[in-house]
């Protein structure tokens, strides 16, 4: 498809078709980046024991689903959304409310109705709900572009967090919801960590496949065209708003799926997992990994998870500062990327 502008001069002249070589150069970068990260992950697993690696793997899978889905909007369509965590939260809360079996005898006031649905019945509801929300939000947001879009998406994240926190009759507010069901298919339960990791990876694979299906279709091509020049795309007969809305909804639904997985994995959620900062971190992951590349988002998510967990082992960094230090590093990385590589590590689209 597209190519990168790097390349070694002499080899470049030798290459008969310039595009091919440039693709190779890009391939090299991807290859190296992936090799490094995968080696890192494997070394980590061997050294730290598989149990912890499985936990990290699950965290990674959830972040990766989120990053891939957000990249559809940010990278492929060019809408820098900082509000994605809202859809993640909608998915998580729907699954939590519908599957939680907790009995709240002692909790006189903020008991919410329990449904006790199985996970796989609740998840589609969450996804659909997120989709419907996305339609409503998207219709309003469709008129905004560039920095104004960023501004209102900030607003969306803040509003979602407040809804999760303050709609106590629905979400139990700050109490959070616990005893969220683990997924089960017939007699196969994904109760154990390994089984859940496998399920999460399956979800990731499905999301990646869907994303790949979208971006490699004519639809995806139109998205990139919209990103480049919305008005010109319109002149060629595309109803741009519909395309933007569709990808926005699809992306929101994927995020909701990640949310459902997350809820089921932790078995307990409260609004603190859906704060604005998490959303900003998510955008950083997408930009870090690379805009408009599925592989990049996966890599970004992996680097993100390994960054934090890796830093836990730094001797000079007190443990309680790991989260903040990660944030400092991400912030500085964002600045450096914008300065030197505005498309992110493996990106195909410069902001």
């Amino acid at each position, binding site marked *: 498809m597209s190519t990168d502008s790097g390349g070694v001069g002499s080899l470049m002249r030798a290459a008969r*078709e310039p595009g091919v070589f440039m693709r190779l150069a890009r391939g090299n970068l991807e290859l190296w980046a992936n090799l490094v990260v995968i080696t890192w992950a494997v070394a980590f697993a061997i050294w730290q024991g598989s149990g912890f690696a499985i936990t990290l793997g699950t965290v990674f899978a959830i972040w990766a689903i989120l990053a891939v889905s957000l990249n559809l909007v940010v990278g492929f369509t060019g809408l820098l959304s900082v509000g994605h965590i809202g859809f993640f939260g909608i998915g998580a809360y729907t699954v939590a409310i519908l599957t939680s079996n907790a009995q709240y005898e002692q909790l006189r006031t903020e008991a919410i109705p329990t449904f006790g649905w199985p996970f796989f019945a609740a998840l589609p509801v969450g996804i659909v709900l997120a989709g419907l929300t996305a339609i409503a939000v998207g219709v309003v947001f469709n008129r905004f572009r560039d920095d104004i879009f960023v501004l209102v998406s900030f607003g969306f994240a803040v509003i979602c967090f407040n809804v999760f926190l303050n709609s106590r009759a629905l979400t139990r507010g700050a109490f959070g919801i616990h005893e969220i069901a683990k997924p089960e298919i017939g007699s196969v339960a994904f109760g154990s960590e390994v089984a859940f990791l496998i399920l999460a990876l399956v979800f990731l694979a499905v999301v990646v496949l869907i994303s790949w299906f979208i971006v490699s279709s004519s*639809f995806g091509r*139109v998205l990139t065209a919209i990103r*480049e020049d919305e008005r010109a795309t319109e002149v060629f007969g595309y109803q741009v708003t519909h395309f933007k809305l569709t990808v926005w909804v699809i992306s929101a639904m994927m995020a909701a799926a990640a949310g459902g997985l997350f809820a089921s994995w932790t078995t307990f959620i409260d609004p603190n997992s859906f704060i604005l900062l998490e959303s900003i971190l998510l955008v950083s992951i997408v930009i870090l990994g690379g805009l408009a590349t599925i592989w990049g988002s996966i890599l970004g998510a992996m680097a993100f998870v390994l960054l934090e967990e890796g830093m836990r082992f730094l001797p000079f960094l007190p443990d309680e500062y790991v989260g903040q230090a990660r944030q400092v590093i991400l912030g500085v990385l964002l600045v450096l990327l914008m300065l030197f590589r505005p498309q992110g590590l493996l990106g195909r689209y410069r902001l």
Partner: protein
Amino acid sequence: MSTRTERDGGRFALETIEVAKHFGGVHAVDGLSIAIPRGKITCVVGPNGSGKSTLINLLSGMLPLDGGVVVVDGVRLRVIKPHETPGLGITRTFQDVRLFDQISVWDNIMVVLTERRLLPALLERGKSGQRERTEEILRSVGMWEKRRSLAMDLSYGQRKLLEIGRAMALNVNTYLFDEPFAGLFPQMLERVKGIVRQLRNEGRTILFISHNMDIVRELSDHLIVMDSGKLLTEGDAEEVLAQPEVIEAYLGV
């Protein structure tokens, strides 16, 4: 100058009746009534700021009309939505070359050929017909070798050609070219001229803006001269160019 009515819909691919557009207090297009004959090459000339580009923007729906009617194939339109213009048989290029910069040359053409509806677009992935058409167009504008590069990495002339190719890919009856020849070197120029002629030979209508009188003379069947948003004169190219007021408008006061 003759007056025309809608009855001439068959003869004319596009007509404007008292079309107006103003920006603040500036009347960019001021009650303009022109007709573009079907299957011919029409050229719009006029000094800078005479409203030529605004006219194309109005015809392609990029700007909403402030007044007047556009008649397309006999259908009177007061509002033209940009995404409906291909349906009306109109496509265009831009003066400042608006390509999809960060996607490949190949995809720049493919975008125009593919499905407009959402769901079919999701399911469609480069049908063979589209691929062949893309290849055909890329070869005809001499960009086949460059198909993998990003549009932003092309030279100015190549970008211009690609944009024209992109418009060609859209199989419509009327092409609006905004300064397709500006800033081109002779080699490229010949190529673009060839494309324009070829389109005419296929029976399509072409409207282009140019400042290059050489080309205007050579190509245009019909000439429209604009000045200050108004129609100065129109008619056969050689005849119009012979008129002293055109030279006046063009070369000075």
